[in-house]
């Protein structure tokens, strides 16, 4: 694990009070800047002296970035809205309970009170070799210390490992992908809106980042369309400690069914790869099927096709298989 060494190295702190000012600062300082929201991921990095930004931009005072509001037939959530608010907001709970469920399972109540949904989505991987400051691929070197015969890698990737075997640790990400959410990103080239699943990238694209966010950009809000409001939702997070831990595997699914037949489905598994993994083959197979035990079992087998275990994470394959089965049976579809 990373060692907290001593005090945080000096940096210049900016506390903008408008989105325009925050974006101007990002544009001005680019790679030298660090966007701080809840600060839970950031302060670890700073104290470990592994990330040493010259400039920190505290987004906590930007009103446009916080709160839950109506947006068309859905809702829009500001990126610095706390996880507690996301988990308890009545609109989210009643229409998009999948997200509320996922947000309520992040870490501890104290962390959810401070942590933001944007931070939960954009947070870096928890691989301790990387967090320990070793010069691994993700840190700009050319070695993956987590992928050796003696590495402690029971939390690492089954899929899409490409030189780096770290996984995405977000709990809200799979829920938002299952809800077909759109992420609003603002930066030097203006505003762009992308599908939630396109926000996350693999090492094959850029081994030093987990998201498409460029140094001059900010994730400003998350829009959830009404398409999946009120569907049958299932979220389950498996972790070593129920009180406070990152997921070993988690699953989020949204199912629309009629008369016991699955009409449409979105299913996403996370903590098994560098990005949340949408199970499109499983979705395709399940459409038009009745959610029986046999169908669920076949879907579980299909889901883990192509999984490649490391030295110590083979248990994740049956775990993922069973979570897929439970997601299909657990919705009551």
């Amino acid at each position, binding site marked *: 694990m990373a060692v907290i060494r001593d005090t945080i190295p000096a940096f210049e702190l900016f506390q903008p009070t408008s989105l325009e000012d925050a974006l101007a600062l990002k544009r001005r300082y680019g790679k030298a800047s660090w966007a701080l929201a809840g600060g839970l991921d950031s302060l670890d990095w700073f104290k470990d002296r592994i990330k040493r930004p010259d400039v920190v931009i505290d987004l906590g005072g930007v009103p446009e970035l916080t709160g839950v509001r109506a947006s068309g037939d859905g809702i829009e959530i500001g990126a610095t809205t706390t996880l507690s608010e996301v988990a308890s907001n009545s609109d989210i709970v009643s229409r998009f309970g999948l997200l509320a469920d996922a947000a309520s399972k992040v870490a501890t109540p104290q962390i959810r009170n401070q942590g933001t949904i944007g931070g939960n989505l954009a947070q870096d991987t928890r691989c301790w070799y990387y967090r320990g400051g070793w*010069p691994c691929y993700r840190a*700009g070197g*050319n*070695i993956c210390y987590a992928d050796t015969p003696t590495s402690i890698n029971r939390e690492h990737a089954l899929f899409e490992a*490409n*030189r780096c075997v770290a996984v995405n640790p977000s709990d809200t990400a799979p829920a938002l992908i299952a809800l077909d959410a759109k992420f609003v990103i603002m930066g030097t080239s203006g505003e762009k809106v992308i599908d939630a699943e396109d926000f996350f990238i693999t090492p*094959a694209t850029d081994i030093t980042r987990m998201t*498409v966010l460029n140094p001059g950009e900010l994730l400003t809000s998350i829009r959830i369309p009404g398409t999946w409001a009120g569907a049958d939702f299932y979220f389950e997070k498996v972790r070593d400690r129920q009180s406070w831990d990152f997921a070993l595997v988690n699953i989020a699914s949204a199912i629309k069914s009629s008369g016991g037949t699955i009409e449409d489905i979105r299913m996403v598994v996370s903590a098994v790869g560098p990005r949340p993994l949408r199970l499109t083959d499983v979705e395709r197979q399940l459409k038009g099927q009745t959610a029986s035990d046999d169908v669920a079992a076949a879907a579980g087998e299909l889901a883990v096709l192509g999984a490649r275990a490391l030295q110590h994470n083979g248990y994740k394959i049956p775990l993922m298989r069973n979570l897929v089965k439970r997601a299909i049976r657990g919705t009551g579809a």
Partner: protein
Amino acid sequence: MSLFQWEQNPWGQEILVRISWDLLYLSILGGALFIIGHLIYRAKNPTPASPEPSGKAAPGVPERVVRHSLAARLFHWIMAASVLVLLGTGFFPVMGIQFDWVEIHWIAGLVLVASIVFHIIHALGWMNWRDIWISGKDWAEWKAEMQHVMGKGGAIEKKPGKYPVDHRIFHSMIALAAFGVMITGLLMMVRVDNALFARNPYLLEDSSWGWVYVIHGLSAVGFVGMIMTHIYFAVLPEKRWMTISMIWGWVTKKEYLAHHDPERWVVSKETTD
């Protein structure tokens, strides 16, 4: 500007990681400066559109002289395509253009390796490989050509054989860089999932991997500058006859006699109408 990137490994040892990407921009700058310099020189010293045909015109030279066989042309263009894909997939991400490049990169690398293996076999078995390699005898020709380039030597008295000396030097440099990227690239493939090798990131120790990455990087950035100049010469009007011959395979009798010494490139056994 730094030449190499160093990191401290978990045992506190300073290890090479890769070249500094500053070298990529240096190679681009070098290629661009060479092209600009040559364009300025060319503007000040216009080349005659077509040099005088050789006085040693051999009887029996056909109207079309085969310069590159179909196999040689296929090799050239397949290698060119694979190199461009390799450079794009290798360097665009470094320059900030992000996409899933790794799989495309190693597949293009395998195409390059296969094409070069084919080329070596073809050259050894069916071509006169001495035509393209440099020897000590080429020094006088190289000196005369450079004096001509620098505007000191007047016209080049001695015409080349099948390949001018600058082509042979370029071939040697490209071959060196190609072997650099090929050998190190094949080694690097064991670090990613692919169709040929099981993933084994620990085939070498970290400092050895650093050298593999450095050689791969140096060879690759070398390619950038060389390919820039190669494409530049390929599109120059006075060199276009050679580019066209790489497409159709032949040069005209007039071009052959104008640019080559028939005694050094005897065509009687490899000609066609």
